[in-house]
């Protein structure tokens, strides 16, 4: 088996605040292969964005710090690199696009300028060549009249177009890995579909690995090969898309899937939801972090922290009771 492109090993990222140390990412490990599309799913505050920022080393001390772990990318540990080296990795080998395209682009420079800036930074080309590359990138993301629009400012684009520009900027230097942090959350539903379709097309074409971070299971469904579910700072389930959707092993995943509204389901009075609220990240519960909200929790769950292990169904899951529970057959009732 080939070496994974990205090998995250036991990352812990902590933030120091007035109230205490927030353990935003507490022991996360996973591997992503070249060309693989991995989805990272979870509710707000579960640590998925912080994981991505940690990989890119965008966490600013002294507020936040990666206290331990290593991130092996393409054979090198990113956490060991000096800042100047890391700057070359950012944008050149790993690119990241963000949630809100409205504010993610600098309003006082043309998008042409911003595109060219990225290209000149990572590729040894002349300014004219960079301009040509930039125009081509814009065309690749299906922006009409690409050449003319190079002179336009961000506020002259619509939200969806701006996100396309962001994607163009991210992919302009042909990175091996693209991290997309909630790229469609700020867009309306039809635009969401277009953007996801575009990203799929480009990723397949260029064989770019993608780490897609979102809370929207629908977005993940059509796009990702593999999915990992995060909760309260750690990964609680990981498997192929088929495994996760058809046969969730972790009660949280099961709850998430059950709370999705579907066109083909029977009309019910109330929507399902996972009851309760996420735990404090300063003082997380002793055992399984999901236990306080779990319908199936038992004493062992509250005592010992479960670790990710292979389940007979195929995926990895962090649950003490994964083997005995047959969640597929339990029908979720709405919370009365």
């Amino acid at each position: 088996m080939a070496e994974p492109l990205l090998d995250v090993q036991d990352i812990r990222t902590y933030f120091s605040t007035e109230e205490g140390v927030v353990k935003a990412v507490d022991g996360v490990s996973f591997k992503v292969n070249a060309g693989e599309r991995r989805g990272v799913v979870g509710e707000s505050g579960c640590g998925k964005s912080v994981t991505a920022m940690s990989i890119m080393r965008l966490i600013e001390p002294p507020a936040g710090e990666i206290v331990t772990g290593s991130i092996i990318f393409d054979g090198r540990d990113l956490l060991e690199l000096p800042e100047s080296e890391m700057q070359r990795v950012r944008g050149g080998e790993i690119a990241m696009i963000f949630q809100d395209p409205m504010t993610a682009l600098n309003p006082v420079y043309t998008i042409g300028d911003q595109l060219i800036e990225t290209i000149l930074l990572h590729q040894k080309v002349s300014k004219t060549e960079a301009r040509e590359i930039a125009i081509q990138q814009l065309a690749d993301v299906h922006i009409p009249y690409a050449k003319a629009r190079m002179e336009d400012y961000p506020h002259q684009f619509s939200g969806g177009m701006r996100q396309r520009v962001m994607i163009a900027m991210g992919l302009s230097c042909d990175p091996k890995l693209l991290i997309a942090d909630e790229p469609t959350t700020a867009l309306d539903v039809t635009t969401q579909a277009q953007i996801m379709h575009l990203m799929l097309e480009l990723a397949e074409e260029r064989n770019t690995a993608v780490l897609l971070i979102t809370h929207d299971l629908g977005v993940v469904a059509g796009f990702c090969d593999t999915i990992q579910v995060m909760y309260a700072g750690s990964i609680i389930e990981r498997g192929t898309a088929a495994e996760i959707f058809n046969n969730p092993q972790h009660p949280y995943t099961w709850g998430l899937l059950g709370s999705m509204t579907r066109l083909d389901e029977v009309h019910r009075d109330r929507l399902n939801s996972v009851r309760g609220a996420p735990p404090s990240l300063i003082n997380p519960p002793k055992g399984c972090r999901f236990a306080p909200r779990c319908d199936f929790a038992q004493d062992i769950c509250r005592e010992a922290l479960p670790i990710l292990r292979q389940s007979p169904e195929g995926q990895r899951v962090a649950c003490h009771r994964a083997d005995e529970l047959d969640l597929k057959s339990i029908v979720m009732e709405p919370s009365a």
Partner: protein
Amino acid sequence: MTDRGPSDELVLDSAEGISAEPITQWDLFVTRLRRHRLATIAFLYMLFIAYVAMMAPLFTCEKNDTFCGSGPIEMSAITTGLMVVIAVGAGYLAYRSFRSNLRGAGVAIAFVAIVSALFLVSSWGWIDLPHINHYADQLPGDDGRLLIRIEPRGSIPMGTDDLGRDVLARVIHGGRASLAVGIVVGGLVALLGTVVGSLAGYYPGVVDQSLMRFTDLILGLPLLPVAIVVGRVLPELRILPGFLKQGAWGIAVLLGALLWGGLARIVRAEFLSLREKEFVEAARAAGANDRRIIFRHILPNAISPIIVQTTLIVGTAIIIEAALSFLGFGVRPPIPTWGGMASGGAAIAPRGDWWELVFSAGALISTVLAINFMGDGLRDALDPTQTIERK
């Protein structure tokens, strides 16, 4: 395992005995204000200065026969009445402050109440309070000669100036001018700015355009040159009543008439945005007329920038009055004002007589500083969306 119902924590069940105290706007405001320690100190300082300045005539002597000893204070009937009101009112306010947990403010207000009571009591002859020297008379020494240019010492804590007048008394009386300027300018600016701004912001079209053109006209006037001209001619204007020509009142009215433009613009901007909000539509649908909507619905929401801006303008006005007096176009001598004293003090300072300049400048700077701190604290306390900086 059976299915469970919704979490009980999510439902505020009164049967469970959960009682929540309603938190009012005032409480939030007070909490945020208390956190801003500098502002509360500033507020107390202002209270102290204002009170001392207001009461100055009561404890300064009419004539300096000797070192103006002590004796019962003489108060007219009006002053007595006023003093009773202040004593009782302050007492009640102090009580409320302690209840709201504003201990610092409570202490300061209690101070006001106690001193007022002391004045009252002294005027009835029950106790004697010490006096300090009058600002206009010259101090005679033991040997009968005038005490000119005496350095601060003992009973003359701030020294005397070139003409032998007690600097401390003058500084206290000078505070009255600044107080007058502060009150009048603050009131005028708040009134004019709010009225013009709200009308312009609420009624679009001709009303808005003409009001704003007028405001732009006022704003377009260069402040200091115009103020200097008016200040120069003020004592000689035949058409004005007497009290406006003397002292700081005329200057205050002048400044108030010139400074309201900025506030009008701000209020107009607030009204323009608030006018579109749904609660206005709702009020109109409920049958409220325009005046009611303006005063009872929109204005309370716009109050915070009004308060903050007015406070800052008061500080600016005090400085401008001082500048005018410094140049000779403001309050005319012999009425003491901090700016005028600074002018005199600056002239004699190279000789080594530092006290007049230092104390008048110190009073001026500390007062304006206190006002600015208060304004800063008010801004922090009234705007819940801002993050508070660690001070």
